[in-house]
Structure formats: structure tokens, C-alpha cells
């Protein structure tokens, strides 16, 4: 049992890791074909995995409806929407103008846009909390933020032609330097983490880890 739960997955991770590392340096058409084929297999398997997700979703929400737990109405709406949309797609197809696409264009898209638009208010609230001159660093942050924000709106240039220049300088120099510093460390972490996974040193994602 340990072989199938631990050793076999580690062997697959090792072989796949080594093969695809080598593939990156081999331009031969057979190597490219292997990569394309693997990507196709991954997409197919990922598509099948939606069945897992659906069963989890239905199991949980059907249970809530059955037990009439508080908020079971939301679960009923979810199950009804899931089943109705799926049936619309199966019966009427997914061409342009079909009911399925109508539901997508007129219900899902506006709802997603609404959620996205709430970000504007959350950003204002987060900025209000963050930009307070309590310490030296916070003051520097506040002043930099003011310049960068004004540089991105027309009124900044109206106030002074130097504001956009300072704002862009802050964005393109100290900000970029900090981002690149983080990226440098990140890239090495990627290498180290990938090595740990390929060689089976990091096994927590299999469950347990020991």
C-alpha cells in the first residue's frame, strides 16, 4: 500500500521532472511533439476532473438542503442554477444566441463585473488605512503614493509638470528595483522547490510528508 501511495507517485514525479527538464534543452521535433501531446493529455484529464468538483458541490449542497441547515436557500438556488444551466447547454447547444450563452452574457458576466467593481471601494478603504503618516517609512510611502497617483491622472500635470515625472521615476526606479529583488529571490526558490519535489525531498503535497 505504501508503494502505491508514496513510492509510485514519487517515481512519477521524478521521471516527469527529469524528462521535462531535459525537454527544455532539446529542440528536436520529437521532443516538441512529446510536450504538445503531454499538454493535450493534461487538458483532457483536467476537463474530467470537473466531475470531482461537481460531485463535491452537489454532495455538500444537497446535504444542506436535506438537513435544512441555516442558509439552505442559497444552496437550493445554487443547485437549481447549476442544473438549469447545464440542461440549457445540453438541449439547446452553445452557439451564439443560444439560451446557454444568454445566461452567460446576461447573468454571469454582469455579476462578475459587479464583484470586480466593488474593488474600487475596497482599494479606497485599504488606501485610507495604509497611507497614514505614523512613522518615517509610512510618511515616505504616503508621499510616494501621492506622486504616483497624481502622475496617472490629468490633474497631476495641471498642478505641475514635474509631478508626472517624479511619479513615473518612483514607479520605474525604486519600485522596479524592489520588484526585481523579490523576483531574484523567487526564481531561486522556484529552482529549489522544484528540485525538492523532483527528488522527493518535499513530500507534504502527497499527504503526511514523513
Amino acid at each position, binding site marked *: 500500500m505504501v508503494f502505491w501511495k508514496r513510492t509510485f507517485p514519487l517515481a512519477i514525479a521524478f521521471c516527469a521532472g527529469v524528462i521535462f527538464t531535459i525537454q527544455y*534543452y532539446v*529542440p528536436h*521535433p520529437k521532443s516538441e511533439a512529446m510536450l504538445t501531446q503531454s499538454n493535450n493529455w493534461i487538458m483532457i484529464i483536467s476537463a474530467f476532473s470537473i*466531475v470531482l468538483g461537481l460531485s463535491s458541490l452537489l*454532495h455538500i449542497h444537497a*446535504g444542506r438542503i436535506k438537513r435544512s441547515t441555516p442558509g439552505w436557500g442559497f444552496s437550493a438556488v445554487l443547485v437549481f442554477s447549476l442544473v438549469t444551466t447545464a440542461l440549457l447547454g445540453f438541449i439547446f447547444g452553445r452557439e451564439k444566441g443560444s439560451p446557454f450563452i444568454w445566461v452567460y452574457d446576461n447573468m454571469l458576466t454582469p455579476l462578475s463585473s459587479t464583484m*470586480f467593481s466593488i474593488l474600487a471601494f475596497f482599494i479606497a478603504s485599504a488606501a485610507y488605512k495604509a497611507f497614514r503618516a505614523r512613522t518615517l517609512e509610512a510618511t515616505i510611502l504616503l508621499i510616494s503614493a501621492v506622486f504616483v497617483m497624481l502622475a496617472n491622472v490629468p490633474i497631476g500635470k495641471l498642478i505641475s509638470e514635474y509631478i508626472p515625472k517624479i511619479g513615473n521615476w518612483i514607479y520605474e526606479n525604486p519600485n522596479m528595483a524592489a520588484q526585481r529583488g523579490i523576483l531574484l529571490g523567487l526564481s531561486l*526558490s522556484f529552482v529549489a522547490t522544484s528540485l525538492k519535489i523532483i527528488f522527493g525531498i518535499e513530500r507534504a503535497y502527497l499527504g503526511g510528508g514523513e
Partner: protein
Amino acid sequence: MKIKFFLMLFQICILLISCAPQLPHERQEKLILPSKFKAIDAPNDDGSAVMLVWSVSPSENIKDKVIENEIKEKTRKALKKETTENTKDALIEEISKRVRKEVETSYKSHPEVKYVISMSKTKDGEFAKTAEIKSNSSYASENPKYFGHSNNNLMLHFLEITKPFKELKEKEAELTKIIVDSNTLIETIQFAINGNQENLLSFIKEKEEKYKVLSLQLREAKGKEKEQLQKKCEAFRTDMNRYQQISEFAKRQNNSAGEEKITELKEKVLKTREEREEIRQQLNNEDDLTYYFKLEMTDGKETLIYPEIVSAYPIPNYFNWARFNHFVLMLLFSIIVMFFIGYAKRNPNLFIRKINGLDAVDEAVGRATEMGKPIFYFTGLGTMGELPTIASTNILGRVARKIAQHDSQIKVPCTDPIVMSVCQEVVKEAYTAVGRPDAFREENVFFVSNEQFSFTAAADGMMIREKPATNFFLGYFFAESLLLTETGAGTGAIQIAGTDALHQLPFFITTCDYTLIGEELYAASAYLSHEPVLMGSLKGQDAGKLFLLVLVVIGVILSSIGVDYLMRLLEPL
């Protein structure tokens, strides 16, 4: 002594830079053929290309860059001579334009010299023109991927010729267009038959609007762009007429006529697909061919032909030497990391700096236990194939163990079914490892939605209703990060976040109590477990970082004095 040594090094560098071969500045009037012309297999590729290389001829047009440099220099001298501090911008611009016109006229008075490449599949067969190149372009120095960074590359031209060749590719594209157009027509007729006149009309209106935009662009375009836009406009006009006809046709005729038309079009699509497959087969059969090339040089009045016909046979390569520097660095870092892992096994007490966010995990779990509230753990929007998600599931195992020990409750809403399966296993194993398999509930690790904002809405709703004591946001997040963390902050939860998404870090830092920045997310697993092997890998990363820092400092110093050899050595190709 040291100062003398560095001064000498500096002088050698300047000497080396000035010894670089320069392009001929004085152009020979008489046409002279290049001294060398050869065809070779393109290196580091999948066998789909050959390369032609030939030397620079003294008769060539002067390179545009050389002309620009001369314009700059002459403009600078003219402005110095003719202007003062108080001179107006308009006059400065006039002088610049005058100088530019003078220099360009002097160079462009010479007829333009071009190279013409012709190709054949047999030595004695008919040669068809493949490419026409201006003599002041296409230098080998512009392609270090194939030729390296030698200064001699300034004296070589190069052209890459890929197979499949132009005519076959054009034919394939033409057939693909016929297939796409036919499928569009089938769709259009189906709209009409289904009675979706409204959709058909809005579809036609869309096309009309695109045509209007193209017409406006055509009015303003010039030269080659105008020709291309004209062709596009003509194609659009033909399409528009066709759609109008279909619309009229659908109104007048009955459904069966429409169905017949669809059947006819479907047959056409099938035939065209077969034809396209044949062409693709022909392209694949180009595998076993040697290609022959001729070089001609012309200035419009006279044409010279290189005496020798050259040939090349494209071969797929087994190693991409352009990525050799990348390969060496990868091996080097891997060896460093493995070395430190071995070192850590022998010396387990390695120092690692304090990471406040990870020290707070115990406190956060304890708080949830005292309050009797659940802990929410978000793994982000990534799939299981992405490193941040793998790192997140590694941390989940450690966190789930602490939660199981404290007899608290964890909930893991997931956006990906595979991630959900992995998280279920991880949490289950964590509970089993501390002897509490009965406390694990599978419905606590569940799939929500793989749509970004659907998941966010569901997660926000859960946080508002259940008011968790602690939220973990560890993984790769996009725009939903602020929506989640602001909502969590509003419910009064302790929030610990960690991501390598640079654009989301500011949002996490402002709204969460603790944030793991970038590589701290990957260090978390080692930090929480204190396993020597994992700590060793962190040390290896740090050693690699030190090596890179030293390289950066040396590279900056060398580049500042004009020696970019180190930069070229590490350049991605």
C-alpha cells in the same frame, strides 16, 4: 600597485573596444560581389530551417545606424556653431531638419543595393526568388543566438529560411481561410433558418462597424500598410455582400433550401480539409530534402550573380546550445542546493531568520480554538501544476496538524477540483498523523467554483456568515485578493497571507496582520517543520542569491566601463 593594475586593465579594455571591425564608411561605386557565400543548417532548432551567410561587400549602402550617428554628430556641431542659449526651439528644430536632409540626400544619391536570394530543390532545377534584402540590413551581429557576440559578425549578413516554404504555407493559409469562411456561412444560414433574424442582423451590423473602422484606417494609411488595408477592405466588402445575400436568401426561401445550402457548404469544408491535409503532408515530406541557393547583387542598373550555387540540408538538433549558459546555471544552482542539503544532514542546527507570519500560526490556531470558530485556508486560484499552489498545500499539511492537535476546525474552499482532492488527502493525513482521524470531515475541504469572482462571492459570504477566527491566504491570487482580505478584516479575523504575485502583495500587506513576501512562502514549509533537509535547501538558495549578487555587482562595474562580456555571457538567447 593595485591602482596601477586596474588602470592597465581599463586601458586594455578600451583598446579592445576600439579594435572592433567597422563597416566600410566610404562606399565603392562599382558593384563588387561578396567574397563568401555559404548555406548551413540552422543550429539549435528542430530541423525546420537553413541559414545563408555571406560577407559584407564594399559596394553596400551605408548602415542606417551609421547615417543616424553622422546626423547626430553634424547636428550637434551645427547647433554649437549657429545657436546660443537664447535661441528659440523653432530655429533649433529647423537647423536639425536641415542637417538631416543634407546627410540623407548625400547618402541616398547612390542607388540602393539589394541582395536577391533564389532557391531550388535540385541543383539543375528552376530557381525561384525567395527573398530580397537591402544591403544595409540583416547582419549576423543582430542574431547572437546563432552567431555569438563576435565583432566579426558586423561583417556578415545572414538570412534564415524556414521550411515549409512560402508557396505551400500560403496555400495552406488560403485553404484555412476557405474553411473558416464556409463555417461562418453555415453558422449565418443556421441563424436565418432558426428564425434568429435579429441575431443575423446584429452579426451583420458588427461586420459593418468593423468595415467602417478599416475604411477610416485606410484613408490615413500610406505605402505598404495602405496596400494591406486595401486588400482587407476588399475582402470585407465581398464578405458583406455575401452576408447580405444570405440574409435576403433566407427571407425569401424556405428552410429546406437553407438546409441544402448548408449541406453543400459542409461538403466543401470536407473537401478543403482533405486538400489542406495533402499540403501538410507535402510540407512534412520536405524532411528529406537538400535545398540549393543562388545569390544575386543588384543596384537596379547592374546585376551580379555569385558564381557558386550553395546547398544545405536541415537537420534537427539534439541540444539547444543557445541555452547552454542557462543549462550551466541550472546545474550549478542544483549542485549548490544538493550540497547544502547534504551539509544540513550532517549539521542539523542551521540558523534561519525569524519570519513573524509563520511564528504567528500557533497564536492564530490557538485563538480559533479559544473562540470556537473555524479557520479558513485559501490556496489561491492556481492549479496543482503551479509552484505557489504546491507550496500552499505543503504548508496546509503543517497547519492542519496544529489544528488537529488543538481540536479546532479547518475549512478549505478550493477553486480547482484537483487541488481539492490533494487538499483533502493532506488534511486527512494530518488528522491521522496526530491520532484524530475521526475528527476529519471531508465536507470541510470542498470545491466552490473555478470562476474567479464566483469563488470570491462565495468565500466572502462564508466569511461573513461563519466569522472565522483566522484566515490563511497562501498561494497565487489575482484581483480577488483585496475582496477576500478586506472582507476577512471586516469580520475581525487574524489574517496571514503569502503570495509570490507581486501585484497583490501591497493589498495583502495593507489588509492582513502578517504577510509572507515572495520566497518566504516557499521557505514556510522548512520553517514550520525545522527538518534539516528542508533547512539545507534554504541555505542553498541563500548561497545562490549571494552568487547572483556578486555577479550583479561585477556586471554593473564592467558595463559601466563598456565591457559587456559578462552581460552577454548570461544573456538569455
